């Protein structure tokens, strides 16, 4: 009671004093750096208030403050200064570079570290490389920016997932996707799409690029071991923008542009070309037995004897009209736009960042759009001297009007491009849709069928930090939720296509997932002389819950009503619940001596619900050490060497990325027979199942030379994955196809290098360029064996031939080797075995052999160039991937001169190079009238090497004087081109070389080329 009274009295006294002495005065001045150059944008704040201004482009400021108050001058990278307001009206300040602040702080998830204290290889990408990239998902900004990170697009349909591999692949049959962490919390960012035949939708598409401050990619064990069992595939740490104290600043970021396919891809045959091939195929197939010698005779034979099952006569009668389905399904110059307003501000005891954004993109194919509305509010406040509250919240709603893609779905517009015969016309004479096309008319389908995803995501991440009375010891508690509501609607119209045989078809999927993460942590740091320690102990609990509801029906009463309410025959209903849990205890600490010698260590114990009681817990750890040579006396005065560090780390991480409940012997009940429920055994189970573990060694050298004009890193890693979560193929006679076991091992090794050169640094003109390069050498060391001690290889796709066994690469291509088209007979030949000494025309007699490459690039590289001159700037960035091979899927139907091409579907113009007469040297066999089975062989396996000019941005920052005159603090206008140029090594690879991680070309929207015009306005 006495204390309270005392407090009140004090407060009263303060108020009185304030009333008496609060005389406002205007203080002006200039803020410069140590070289005397003016510093624009410096925050000048009256301490303890939200009264603040920023310096202009000449470093000048003017602020009204009560005399006797204190002004705080702060600017990123400089040590803040405080000045008391005395009698003078002018306060000029020289800010000194803050060595510690200048040293970039890298966010590593649970902790953030100064570069100097790091012992591993982590790359951080900042907002200027992330914001205003014309792509729906932020991960696409990573392509080419991080050595050892490979990214490929599963589809160019906006919102689709990307496949990311960090340092090769760590697992054969468990997941290889990295872990995502947003603001310190592990999140799930996988495909949320409701139906595998429809476009995928990445959960990351819910985040606005503009809300992201930085993305760190953690690659080595010293960084990833804190994520224990989920660290083996690397970790991508996303940090959202937090508030910046000072006068409230408002930014408007906007762009608008157009997209087209980055690569034209194969071109479909015209009707006339196809007709010619048809007659030739008849001549080739029946000529000898039926005495046909000319294409004309073959044509007669086709109509008279073979019965014209493919509709040529009608087409000829109609005057041979040509339809180009490729053009018909293309959405030329598909618009793309994004508009974001954000505001940030605060005082020294609170700050906020808030934004509202809208993104919209049409696909380059008809019938598909994507949009996103997002808002965020990040807020921090000191609740008291010792308590700090922080919250970051994002809510977004995304809508994706998807299409059927990923396979040759007949109702997919991409299928129509190649599969619909050019004989079929899109419209009838009266202008109505022609519904008699071989594949459902995509123009009608795109207007009448529905594949819609609606995805709402709310991320709320809240923490409270208590700076305990013990100096430098803080306790932090964090609670976060990632709530995702997904709704998918499919409708197939009654008139044509997939729903026509059942009077329409509809389905609806509803999925609600909630991921909770709770963390409690203790952090202590201190300096004891030259000994610096920083220790964090953390406990984390994560819980995932998934509620799923599905219903389907057919027999719709009428056209135009597409909800299940109008379905006369409900065909399916399903609801389910699933969950998983992860609990962890973590300790991580770092020590350095005078910033010269750095040691750090991490230990994590983690329990996962995917394993049985006895095998649930795993221990993961890492050690790292670094030596900052530039801190040593022999280098500290060096003009040449500014930064030189040798570092190394070794540690154990894990992977538990398999489905839930694989350890239990279960019976499933989602079957039915004769109108009643049925059960069946789900699998053998495996109570012994436990973690897959990886041991990673990482060594490297970081350097900065010539005033850091030349900076870079060199590194080497060796990752051994053991006790793989191996989905061991079983003899089908067991009743199952596979069983998870911890068996087998694999290694990935590689070199990584990054280099950046600031060639010219000056006030008006800057020029820098750089790049990164990384290799991956992947080898499977051991796989499961059967009772005879024979290796059991694991195959991705038996037919398409990707196989892994001891001594091969993971999923190395494995198929018969094509030996060319016999110039005498025009038929494909294959080598009988790996000696390549004999050939055969009988595909079944050709051994499958390893082809010396997998779908995983063995060499990737990125390059970037930056030039600026008096406000104008140019940035360019490119990506190279190579050493891998890509397989052309669907060649059986589209790229072999057979009846599928000439009769049933259509094919590529490459077929015009077919063999015609003895002596012809060509890749394309002679045309035949008949189908052909799948013959996966190396003829359709192409070098995957490509280079892509990923981004080119040309822009202009308006003169500061002009900007200020119109009340702004900054204005930029820019033109950005994406995927402007693509170089492909293999001329026979006509498809876009950027395919998903499977390495197969696919019937999807290809990557897009876009041009956008954008502005950034800061007020």
């Amino acid at each position, binding site marked *: 009671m006495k204390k309270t009274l005392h407090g009140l009295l004090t407060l009263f006294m303060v108020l009185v004093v304030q009333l008496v002495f609060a005389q406002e005065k205007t203080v002006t001045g200039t803020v410069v750096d140590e070289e005397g150059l003016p510093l624009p944008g410096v925050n000048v704040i009256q301490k303890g208030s939200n009264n603040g201004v920023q310096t202009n482009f000449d470093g000048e400021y003017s602020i009204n403050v009560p005399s006797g108050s204190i002004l705080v001058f702060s600017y990123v990278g400089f040590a803040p200064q405080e000045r008391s307001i005395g009698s003078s009206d002018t306060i000029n300040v020289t800010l000194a570079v803050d060595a510690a602040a200048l040293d970039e702080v890298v966010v590593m998830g649970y902790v953030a570290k100064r570069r100097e204290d790091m012992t591993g290889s982590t790359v951080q990408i900042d907002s200027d490389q992330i914001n205003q990239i014309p792509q729906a998902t932020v991960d696409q900004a990573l392509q080419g920016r991080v050595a050892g990170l490979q990214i490929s697009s599963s589809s160019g349909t906006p919102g689709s997932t990307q496949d990311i591999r960090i340092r090769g692949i760590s697992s054969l049959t468990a997941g290889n996707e990295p872990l995502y962490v947003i603001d310190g919390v592990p999140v799930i960012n996988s495909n949320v799409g409701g139906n595998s035949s429809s476009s995928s939708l990445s959960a990351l598409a819910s985040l606005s690029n503009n809300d992201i401050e930085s993305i760190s990619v953690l690659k080595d064990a010293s960084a990833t071991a804190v994520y224990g069992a989920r660290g083996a595939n690397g970790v991508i740490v996303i940090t959202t923008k937090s508030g910046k104290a000072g006068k409230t600043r408002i930014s408007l970021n906007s762009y608008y542009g157009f997209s087209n396919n980055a690569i034209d891809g194969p071109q479909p045959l015209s009707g006339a070309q196809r007709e010619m091939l048809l007659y030739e195929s008849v001549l080739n197939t029946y000529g000898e037995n039926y005495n046909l010698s000319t294409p004309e005779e073959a044509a007669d034979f086709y109509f008279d004897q073979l019965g014209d099952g493919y509709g040529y006569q009608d087409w000829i009668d109609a005057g041979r009209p040509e339809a180009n389905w490729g053009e018909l399904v293309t959405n030329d110059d598909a618009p793309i736009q994004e508009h974001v307003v954000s505001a940030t501000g605060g005082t020294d005891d609170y700050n906020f960042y808030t934004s509202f954004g809208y993104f919209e993109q049409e696909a380059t194919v008809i019938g598909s759009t994507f949009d996103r509305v997002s808002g965020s509010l990040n807020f921090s406040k000191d609740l008291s001297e*010792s308590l700090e509250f922080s919250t970051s919240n994002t809510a977004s709603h995304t809508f994706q009007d998807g299409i059927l893609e990923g396979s040759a779905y007949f109702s997919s517009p991409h299928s129509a491009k190649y599969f619909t015969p050019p004989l079929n016309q899109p419209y009838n004479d009266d202008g109505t849709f022609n519904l008699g096309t071989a594949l459902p008319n995509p123009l009608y389908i795109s207007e009448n069928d529905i594949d819609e995803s609606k995805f709402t995501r709310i991320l709320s991440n809240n923490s409270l930090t208590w700076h305990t009375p013990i100096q430098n010891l803080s306790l932090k508690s964090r609670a976060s939720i990632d709530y995702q509501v997904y709704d998918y609607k499919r409708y197939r119209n009654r008139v044509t296509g*997939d729903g026509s045989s059942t009077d329409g078809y509809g389905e609806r999927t509803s999925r609600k997932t909630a991921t909770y993460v709770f963390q409690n942590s203790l952090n202590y740091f201190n300096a004891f002389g030259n000994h610096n320690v920083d220790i964090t102990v953390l406990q984390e609990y994560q819980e995932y819950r998934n509620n799923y509801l599905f219903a389907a029906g057919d027999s719709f009463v009428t056209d135009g009503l597409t909800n299940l309410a109008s379905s006369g025959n409900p065909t399916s209903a399903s609801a389910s619940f699933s969950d998983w849990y992860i*609990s962890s205890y973590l300790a991580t600490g770092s020590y350095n001596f005078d910033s010269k010698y750095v040691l750090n260590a991490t230990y994590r114990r983690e329990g996962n619900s995917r394993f049985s009681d006895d095998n649930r817990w795993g221990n993961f750890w890492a050690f790292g050490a670094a030596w900052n040579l530039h801190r040593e006396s022999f280098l500290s005065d060096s003009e040449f060497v500014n930064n030189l560090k040798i570092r190394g780390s070794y540690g154990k991480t894990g992977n538990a990325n398999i489905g839930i409940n694989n350890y*239990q012997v279960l019976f499933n009940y989602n079957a039915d027979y004769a109108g009643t429920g*049925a*059960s069946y055994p789900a699998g053998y189970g495996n109570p012994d199942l436990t973690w897959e573990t990886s041991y990673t060694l990482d060594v490297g050298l970081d350097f900065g030379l010539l005033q850091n004009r030349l900076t870079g890193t060199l590194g080497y890693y060796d990752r051994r994955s053991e006790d793989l979560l191996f989905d061991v193929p*079983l003899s089908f*006679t067991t009743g199952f196809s596979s069983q998870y076991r911890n068996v087998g091992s694999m290694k990935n090794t590689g070199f990584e290098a990054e280099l950046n050169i600031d060639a010219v640094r000056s006030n008006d003109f800057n020029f820098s360029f750089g790049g990164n390069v990384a290799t991956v050498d992947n080898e499977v060391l051991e796989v499961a064996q*059967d009772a005879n001690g024979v290796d059991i290889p694991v195959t991705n796709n*038996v037919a398409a031939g990707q196989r892994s066994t001891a001594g091969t690469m993971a999923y190395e291509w494995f198929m018969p080797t094509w030996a060319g088209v016999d110039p005498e007979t025009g038929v494909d030949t294959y080598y009988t075995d790996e000696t390549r000494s004999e050939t055969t025309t009988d595909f079944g007699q050709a051994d499958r052999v390893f082809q010396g490459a997998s779908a995983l690039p063995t060499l990737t590289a990125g390059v970037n160039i930056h030039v600026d001159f008096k406000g104008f700037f140019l940035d360019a960035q490119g990506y190279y991937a190579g050493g891998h091979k890509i397989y052309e899927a669907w060649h059986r139907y589209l790229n072999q001169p057979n009846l599928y091409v000439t009769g049933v579907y259509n094919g590529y113009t490459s077929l015009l190079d077919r063999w015609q007469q003895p002596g012809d040297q060509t890749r394309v066999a002679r045309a035949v009238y008949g189908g052909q089975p799948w013959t996966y062989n190396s003829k359709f396996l192409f070098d995957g090497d490509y280079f892509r000019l990923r981004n080119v941005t040309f822009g202009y920052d308006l003169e500061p004087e002009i900007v200020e005159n119109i009340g702004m603090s900054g204005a930029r206008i820019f033109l950005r081109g994406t995927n402007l140029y693509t170089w492909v090594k293999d001329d026979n690879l006509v498809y876009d070389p950027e395919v998903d991680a499977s390495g197969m070309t696919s019937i999807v929207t290809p990557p897009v080329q876009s041009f956008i015009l954008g502005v950034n306005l800061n007020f």
Partner: protein
Amino acid sequence: MKKNNIIYIIFAVVCGVFLSCSTEDLDPSLEQSKRSEEALNSVGDMEGLIKGAYNRLTSSGYYGRDYLVTNEVRTPNVFSNGNSGRFITQGEFGYLPSSTYIWDDAYGVIAIANILISRDISTLEGSEEDLAYARHIQGQAYAMRALAHFDLLLTYGQQYTSGDLGVPYITGFGTGDDFPSRESINSNVDNILADLQSAFDLMDEDFYDASKEFMSKYSAKALESRVALYFERWQDASDAAEAVIDSGIYSIVSADNYASSFMDDGGANSIFELAFSGTDNAGSNSLEFIYRGGTYGDIQVLENVLSIYDADDVRNDILGYEGDLLRNMGKYPDRASNVIVIRYEEVILNYAEAEFRLGNNAEALEFLNMVPEYRNAEQYSTVSEDNFLLERRKELIFEGQYYWDLLRNGRDIEVLNINQNITDPIEYGDYRLAYPIPLAEIDANSNITQNPGYGG
């Protein structure tokens, strides 16, 4: 100060709650599945599981479509026009070991049958009648195990390619022997017939299923007549067929009802059929969708089929045209139509043929003529292999039987029509008459030998 105290307390509580997490807290929910030890404790559980086996039989990779159509498209009854790219490979005998075909589904059925067969009935919960029903279910499991092995033997065995190898005969579940070898054809046939006998013995007439969607006692005998006939155990075939005939349960469908009988489920001629319905069917992968329509509709009827029927034969009604395309219009008329596995007419013909092979020509002719009699077709005056082949083709066309009838009689696959997917005949003994063992099986089990002619 007070406010802060409260926050500290909340802080401490929150930390405490989550620090106290234990191994058990990590147990996942199990809301859609049951642990095996809880899954098979009552006769109701057994009934649910045998339905799971029936359900596996209905998959489109097996009786739902592929098994019947793959057999049919290899005969001069139909061809694939490739409209959806399906069944041309099979029609050309161009299949490669990359396909699993029925191998996985058939052994999947067998695995479930083995779980049921190995269940000790005496420890089940339930009344005496429940236990009797449990035995009846075990009988069905034996019949199903026999049927699946029989289909595997026909498809992968070397009986038509002059080899000795059959398929692994699996009689246990989870026994630890996961790397079985192929057994001889004869041993397979013995096992199949023995299982069918066990099925017959265990099944109880009281549980006769009038819907025919579940196997009954005489379903086992009917299947036995087929197995024995195919493997030339004539007396067995005759006896088994006779037992079905003597049961008096089934009858030949009349001429008037012939075409419509394929639209109705559970007809008097049906002995065992698989249930499909408006809500439970193979959809676009159904038999209906491959035999008809413009979306798939790959399977077209060859023109020579028109000439096998007499003008008055009601079986002409099965055929029809969609536009210019000759089609199977009558069998599997709807995706909701049940698929008959065995019906009485076949048993009659099995009996007749067995009698013919045993030399009892009069009996054979009488029974052979029973079928045309009910089809308004001309009667046969003599019995001969050709006549049996012809009548079976006429009666069972599009049902996947003709291919085996040709092969078991040592016939070549001839080219009778230019539209056929083969341009040259496939001679009896050709390696392609045995399907390749799936590569996935060979990869996982080095004890399995591939059939000759197929590369690795």
